[in-house]
């Protein structure tokens, strides 16, 4: 269990993390979502005691990170896959971490095997691809077989096979009763792995909810209509008691409605329709709407948020 209470980090004038309060509980994968620069990595560094919070507190099972006597067997973290001395071999890199925490050398071979780096264990880390570096970082996180795991953007640089592997790994780690806290800026990725969701934007907490709730509340469905006889259709739909929203351009949108009754209604009144399509807003779109609003909150609050067709390429995620 990781507990954050009013966690704040300021760099001069800039507030990187603003009064974050939430908990990460064991047994599930908790997704930590936010656009680039939202403060995810800063938050993770504060959890690990690397950065000192300006205000607030973060505790791991009730203790500060630097009070842990056996840090690696307690919490394993992948922060930055490049946080490795390039001149050192993968084996020696893991060996010096293991020795520092009294972890037997045999465990180094085990984790190298788990992440599939056994063949290149004696190769220098600077020759590693991004994906191999990511695997080495994950090996370091798993080294102490810890009860809490924290991954910062673990799928970066991984190939599809690697992405599938890390998803399965995270789920199985959580199923063993471990706390898994994983950050990402991709909603679609989180939707596949996380059970709980913490969303931040500009260092502020935007949502702290279960993934199921988030999907239920954010997967908005609507019917999109285009017609040359706009005024007539509006009258007809109004008479039928259907609420219409004027979207951008010529389009009209009916929230939560079905396409069939609208089509039949238009046909009965002889109205020409150029488009009648049921639409489903993607989670990615919902996430962007959520975070974009947090950005705009500071600038100009009256502006409409993200255009409706933003994130269209993610639809169905």
């Amino acid at each position, binding site marked *: 269990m990781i507990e954050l209470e009013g966690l704040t980090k300021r760099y001069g004038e800039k507030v990187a993390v603003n009064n974050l309060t939430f908990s990460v509980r064991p047994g599930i994968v908790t997704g930590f979502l936010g656009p680039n620069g939202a403060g995810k990595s800063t938050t993770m560094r504060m959890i690990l005691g690397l950065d000192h919070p300006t205000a607030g507190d973060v505790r791991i099972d009730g203790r500060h990170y630097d009070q842990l006597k056996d840090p690696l067997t307690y919490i394993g973290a992948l922060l930055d896959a490049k946080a490795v001395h390039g001149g050192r071999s993968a084996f020696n890199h893991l060996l010096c971490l293991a020795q520092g925490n009294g972890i037997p050398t045999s465990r180094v071979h085990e984790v190298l095997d788990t992440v599939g780096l056994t063949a290149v264990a004696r190769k220098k880390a600077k020759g590693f691809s991004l994906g191999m570096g990511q695997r080495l970082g994950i090996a370091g996180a798993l080294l102490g077989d*810890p009860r809490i795991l924290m991954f910062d953007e673990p799928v970066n640089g991984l190939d599809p096979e690697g992405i599938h592997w890390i998803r399965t790994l995270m789920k199985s780690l959580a199923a063993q009763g471990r706390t898994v806290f994983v950050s990402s800026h991709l909603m679609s990725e989180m939707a596949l792995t996380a059970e709980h969701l913490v969303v931040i934007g500009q260092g502020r907490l935007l949502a702290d909810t279960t993934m199921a709730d988030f999907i239920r509340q954010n997967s908005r469905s609507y019917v999109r209509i285009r017609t040359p006889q706009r005024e007539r259709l509006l009258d007809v739909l109004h008479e039928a008691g259907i609420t219409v929203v004027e979207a951008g351009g010529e389009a009209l949108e009916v929230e939560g409605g079905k396409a069939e009754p609208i089509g039949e209604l238009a046909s009965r009144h002889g109205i020409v329709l150029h488009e009648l399509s049921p639409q489903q807003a993607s989670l990615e779109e919902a996430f962007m709407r959520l975070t974009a609003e947090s950005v705009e909150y500071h600038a100009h609050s009256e*502006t409409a948020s993200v255009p409706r067709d933003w994130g269209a390429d993610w639809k169905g995620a």
Partner: protein
Amino acid sequence: MSTHQPPMPQAAEAAPNWQAAPGGPYAGYTSPIPVVKTHLGHALASEWTKIKSVRSTMWTLGVFVLLVVGIGLLAGAVVSSNASDSDMSGQSPLGLGFFGLLLGSMCIITLGVLTTASEYGTGMIRTTMTACPSRGRVLAAKGIVFFVVAFVVTLAASSFVAMTQVSMLDGTGIKDPSGAEWLKGTVGISLYIALLGLLSLVIGSIIRHSAGAITIMIGLLLAPLVIALFMFSQSLADVRQALLEYSIPNQLSVFYANSLSDTGPSGWDPLWIVLGVTAAAYAGAHALLQSRDV
């Protein structure tokens, strides 16, 4: 706030359920790996693996030994072939080791800086500090491992050169070095150079930038002497004298009792000077390490 924000459940609504998680407040996975309470010994083992598993250690120490032994033997050979009976009479041959050690000390400085600063350059420091959250322990372990390595290598190289030179110059009328001279010319100077390396390690931890810290240390090593050489003004005579006497090359030569001047540090003084400076810098580095973000 924009009017379209979808309603989000707040943390407070979900929190009570979490507390009620079965199996006590902090239940979860229990590892079969035995939990070990870590101490300085673990950090020392870790740093020992680190220092011996990078090529820069082999390079800097290799060049160091090459310089000390090579220049030392060369100096011995030149002196022995040209020596007339009066030339070296009454002088200790140990002083011939000075040239190699002066140049070689730059290698030790470089290795010292790299031990700490390279971790900041590569980002490894975040991994290190995550594995060992006690920052003071990390600095202490690095310092101890580096100091021992630097001292042992310097002692071996300087002793070998000293013994070879004494035997090479045997019969040229040289003074047989006394026990105290042997001690100062081997153990003393090795302690001095290892401490100079430790100071570099500490500066590396403060500056967090390899090139910057190496430049500072090389400057500290050579600048006072070079500046003093060009201080011709009479009114600066005192400053010039102090710079000469306390410059690191002159402090090194004090260990061979052939200082540039009769005043200034003598005997074991240079060792106490470098010890004091290193201790002060170490205290500063320790305090900075605690207060700064990694």
